[in-house]
């Protein structure tokens, strides 16, 4: 179970992680381009105001969705692994979604969106392994969503964009770590099925809703 074997596991098979990330990015950027040419280009100061956060939200979703897609086909993890999976995915997805929406819409709407994404994905990923995984996914999604939006607001006038990059890099490393854990737990076993449709639908939904909330959604009094 060396790192070399892990990197082969991630990049060198038919249902590889890089393929999932690529598909997710294609879907998300297509949604963005479509929305941009239909509507967003008429929004005043769109790129300076929203471009950065939407770009990093899309990158984050591609990693989150790909990790979730790769975990779902394995259905037999011990409870402790389920807790770790639910907690990591719930926390990271809630935090990132909350952070990027919080940066454009304020604490309340960022928290609500972050909690929604974090709890949903946390529970969804944690349910592979019983009630403990579900509980952990729920709690971490709740906490991550609130923390992400709160961090964005606290840093609003203090290098928020640099913080956005740092948050993304750290989250990516954690998600790769989770994939390594899965690799160790499953001993590199083949997945039971490959579900690209799931990847496409989830990327489409997350990107569409994030763009809509960020640009047209309600925002806190402080950001009006």
């Amino acid at each position, binding site marked *: 179970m060396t790192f070399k074997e892990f990197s082969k596991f991630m*990049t*060198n*098979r*038919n249902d*590889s992680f*890089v*393929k999932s*990330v*690529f598909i997710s*990015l*294609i879907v998300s*950027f297509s949604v*963005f381009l479509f929305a941009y040419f239909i509507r967003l280009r008429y929004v005043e*100061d769109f*790129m*300076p*105001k929203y*471009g*950065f956060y*939407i*770009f990093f939200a*899309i*990158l984050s979703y591609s990693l989150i969705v790909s990790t979730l897609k790769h975990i779902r086909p394995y259905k037999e993890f011990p409870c402790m692994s389920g807790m770790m999976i639910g907690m990591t995915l719930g926390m990271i997805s809630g935090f990132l979604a909350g952070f990027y929406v919080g940066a454009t819409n*304020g604490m309340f709407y960022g928290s609500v969106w972050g909690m929604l994404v974090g709890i949903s994905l946390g529970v969804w990923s944690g349910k592979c392994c019983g009630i403990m995984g579900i509980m952990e996914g729920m709690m971490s999604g709740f906490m991550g969503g609130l923390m992400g939006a709160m961090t964005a*607001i*606290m840093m*609003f*006038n*203090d290098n928020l964009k640099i913080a956005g990059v740092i948050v993304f890099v750290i989250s990516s490393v954690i998600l790769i770590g989770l994939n390594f854990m899965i690799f160790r737990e499953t001993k590199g076993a083949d997945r039971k099925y490959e579900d690209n449709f799931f990847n496409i639908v989830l990327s489409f939904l997350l990107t569409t809703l994030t763009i809509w909330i960020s640009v047209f959604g309600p925002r806190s*009094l*402080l*950001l009006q």
Partner: protein
Amino acid sequence: MDFSIWTKEFTITMKNSIYLIGIIVLAVAFGFIMVKGNSVSEEVYTAPVIDGVQEVVLSLKDYNYSPNTVKVQAGIPVRIYLDSSVVGCLRDFTINDFGIRKHLKTPEDYVEFTPTIIGRYTFACSMGMGTGVLIVE
């Protein structure tokens, strides 16, 4: 031609290399388009002198003080008000370099001081979430 190199494993490797290159190209291309520009523009406001006092009224814009760069003259008293749009912790106004910290409860409340040394000073709310620069000339 010899196609013996074209094994299943080689095909998978090639495909995944293309995916990897695709990810990098997408990230760089869209990053270049989307991550540019800065919405924060520095609007410099020169405080007018009214009855021997330089008056500045700050309001709230994009969760910060507006204007957030204020130019004043040294040796003349400065009076800073916060209008009714300023809410939350941003009403707790501080300028550390002048030893000022005051909760401006209403738009009529103000802080007053006389800057004597030329330079750039930071004003902020007590939590440092709203910030601005006072330029003394």
